[in-house]
């Protein structure tokens, strides 16, 4: 209606101008008036409002920090292209201050191991010294009792001095946790014991001791019991018994189907994969990648958090890998750069998206013919892939609300009103893709589910729905891998979400000093 008015006005004005009659000028169309524009809510504003309402309740006091990081510039890492001039590029980037994430990771792993060993040793030493003191106390009391029984009229001070002497001789034995030699009176022995007592502290530090054989004297008083203690290696009749805590791990209160969670203690950093980034607090950015002597780009800039699902996948030499929703191709490129997969299939649902994968591959791999039998780019809906039992590693990086992107770009934003229905149906689609991947993968294979959203519905919620679906419709057994222990070394580089009620997966939170993510990933292994 407004457009029609404008047209009519313009026409009238033109006619009247030509006939030289003055006509009052009309205001511009209301749509572009500054006051209207100031009040207009763009999709990015709608997205921010939605996140403020929803994530404030989920993340509580952590939300301001996450919100600040989401609205601030993104941090990138550089994945070195092994098909370019990798050596020179690595040294160039290291000269501007970037660090190899593998080096950081290995160093941190060593640090953690050393700290844990020291902590364990300290605790055991404390236990020994505690027992030591207890034994001394017991010996003193026992000695006093004996003296009182033998010499009832003797003064207490003499008794204690004598008992202290004997105590010194006996203290050398307490390093082995068993003491029966309270009445030893041999001088030569006492000298020896005295010498060894002087170096008790230092010798204990280097000593190899079996902490399992320490006995608390308060509980095992009689000498007979101490002599008779022999550790059992097997208990008869307990073969079918499982530890209670493990048993309850199979059943969770709020699920009506069994979920098995196992911890994954380590993940391997593939030898050929080189990823460089700036350390925590350093906001330097990488220069744009350039073409090298092989006419391909030297490195690929991507969100550092995207590395984790690929590492969790644990690609080994000879694996057949499927990237179910591959576009724009960053994670597929990462998998290729490990140089391990025998076959990699990059799939996506639309042609525009598969074209992007093609573009990326062309920029980073110089010889298409070389990859004819190894790399395939397909265009299908992930739920329609029917090659069962072919892939042993599947990466399901599902379409999601792309939280960070939705806060910065209005174009084709998932929060625009026209896409509301699509947005509300996202979790269902994600669950279908994941359950299908679990059915596709070979027994013993790994499926890694990942999203770039903070929404618990799209994260743990979808994993839960998919696991239930698989349990209900098939007899496939799936284990969820808890990678908390394996991810400990990586916390020097990423901010992981803890105490957020995550049941299945792990979350990388946006944090200003290391502004990666958001990224959620969950490792599932099919056992049967």
């Amino acid at each position, binding site marked *: 209606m407004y457009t029609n008015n404008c047209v009519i006005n313009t026409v009238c004005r033109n006619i009247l101008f030509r006939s030289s009659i003055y006509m009052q000028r009309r205001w511009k169309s209301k749509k572009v008036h500054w006051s209207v524009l100031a009040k207009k809510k763009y999709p990015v504003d709608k997205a921010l409002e939605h996140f*403020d309402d929803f994530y404030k309740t989920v993340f509580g006091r952590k*939300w301001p*920090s996450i*919100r*600040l990081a989401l*609205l*601030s510039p993104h941090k990138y890492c550089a994945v070195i292209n092994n098909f370019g001039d990798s050596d020179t590029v690595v040294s160039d980037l290291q000269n501007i201050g970037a660090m190899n994430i593998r080096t950081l990771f290995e160093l941190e792993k060593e640090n953690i191991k050393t700290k844990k060993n020291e902590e364990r040793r300290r605790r055991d030493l404390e236990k020994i010294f505690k027992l030591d003191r207890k034994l001394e106390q017991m010996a003193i009391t026992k000695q006093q009792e004996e003296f009182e029984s033998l010499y009832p009229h003797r003064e207490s001070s003499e008794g204690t001095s004598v008992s202290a002497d004997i105590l010194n001789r006996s203290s050398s034995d307490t390093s082995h946790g068993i003491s029966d030699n309270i009445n030893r009176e041999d001088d030569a022995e006492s000298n020896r014991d005295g010498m060894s007592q002087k170096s008790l502290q230092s010798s204990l530090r280097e000593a190899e001791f079996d902490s399992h054989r320490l006995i608390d004297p308060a509980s095992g008083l009689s000498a007979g019991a101490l002599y008779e203690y022999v550790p059992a290696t097997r208990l008869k009749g307990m073969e079918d018994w499982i530890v209670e805590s493990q048993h309850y791990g199979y059943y969770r209160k709020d699920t009506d189907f069994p979920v098995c969670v196992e911890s994954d203690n380590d993940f391997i950093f593939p030898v050929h994969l080189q990823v460089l980034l700036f350390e925590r*607090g350093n*906001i330097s950015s990488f220069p744009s990648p350039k073409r090298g002597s092989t006419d391909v780009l030297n490195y690929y800039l991507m969100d550092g958090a995207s590395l984790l699902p690929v590492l969790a996948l644990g690609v080994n030499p000879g694996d057949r890998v499927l990237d179910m929703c591959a576009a724009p191709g960053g994670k597929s490129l990462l998998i290729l750069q490990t140089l391990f997969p025998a076959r990699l299939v990059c799939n996506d649902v639309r042609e525009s998206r598969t074209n992007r994968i093609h573009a990326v591959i062309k920029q980073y791999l110089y010889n298409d013919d070389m990859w004819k039998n190894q790399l395939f780019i397909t265009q299908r809906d992930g739920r329609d892939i029917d090659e069962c039992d072919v892939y042993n590693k599947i990466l399901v990086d599902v379409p999601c609300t792309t939280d960070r992107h939705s806060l910065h770009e209005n174009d084709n934003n998932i929060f625009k009103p026209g896409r509301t229905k699509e947005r509300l149906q996202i979790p269902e689609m994600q669950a279908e893709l994941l359950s299908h991947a679990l059915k596709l993968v070979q027994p013993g294979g790994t499926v890694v589910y990942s999203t770039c959203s903070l929404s618990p519905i799209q994260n743990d919620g979808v994993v839960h729905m998919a696991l239930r679906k698989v349990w209900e419709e098939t007899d496939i057994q799936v284990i969820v891998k808890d990678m908390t222990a394996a991810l400990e070394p990586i916390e020097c580089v990423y901010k992981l979400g803890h105490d957020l009620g995550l049941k299945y997966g792990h979350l990388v939170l946006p944090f200003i000093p290391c502004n990666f993510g958001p990224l959620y990933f969950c490792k599932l292994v099919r056992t049967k």
Partner: protein
Amino acid sequence: MHSLRRASLVLLVWRRTCSCQNGTNATKWKDRILGYSSMMGRESHRYYCTAVSNSSEQDTIHRLEDPRVVSLLEMTVKEGVTPSDVINALDISPELLNRSPLQWENCFKELKLYGFTQRHCLSMVAAYPYLFTLLENNELNLSMAQWMNCQLGYDNVLDLLAACPHFLSVTGNELSRRIPLLLSLGKSRGKNVVKLLQNCPGVLFANWKDVEAKLDYVEKVMKIDTKKENLTKCYMFNRSLDEIQTRHIFLQRAGIYVTPGKVKGTKVEQRQQPWSKNPSLSHITDTSDEMFISEVAPDLTLEELEVFREMYKEELDMEDNSENEDELYDGE
């Protein structure tokens, strides 16, 4: 009275000679002075000796060796100024010793004529020794007249000049240009302007465009109602615009500062709006980094503030560069 005072001074001299000859015996001569002072009726003499006994022995000996200090102390004691204050003033501005007690006396007399108290006189002289020169060149009268001309209120101006004596050197032109602008800021109240100048002395000399830019930012971007918020109470103008902007954007992106909107409603409804919980302007601009984090943004850390500051500086630099490029392009 005079003879007793002279005697105490003589004792000091005697003490000096004794210490030169043999080892120090501090307590004896202090006791004697204290003893004489107890015979004097006036409080000021007791203070004189207390000051002598409180300060470190070496300092006092050193000071009292200087005859200029002694004569100065004599003069100021007459004016009713405590000797310890004088010694502190000399610590602050040692060049004051170059002025004779007569000059001091004249200065005090002139300032008292305007209504400044003894304490004010001493603090002004200590903070701004150039005051003596102003007096000698007969510029003090002119300066005081110019200030009184600004219509800020006589007592207000006295308070201001006692706190910031260097304002006496500001020329009449500068004052006549700047004070009306500040009056518009301070809602035409002299007391507000004086408070503002005491908190942010730089506002008198700063480029008015910078001051306006800060005001614009507060009004148009932060959307703070400057009619309700008394800008003269905070130290905002001491901070650069970049600092104010960095802190504001830090809070805005974290969701702690919500840009106020125009909502018509009752007062209760206004209080229920999310921006009613915004931190006040003085909390944002007047706090140190540690205080800012602990009081205004307790869910964030100092590390995040420091990294954000670096990051935002780069964003601002990029914006400036792109604006400059646009100008160049338009110019072509």
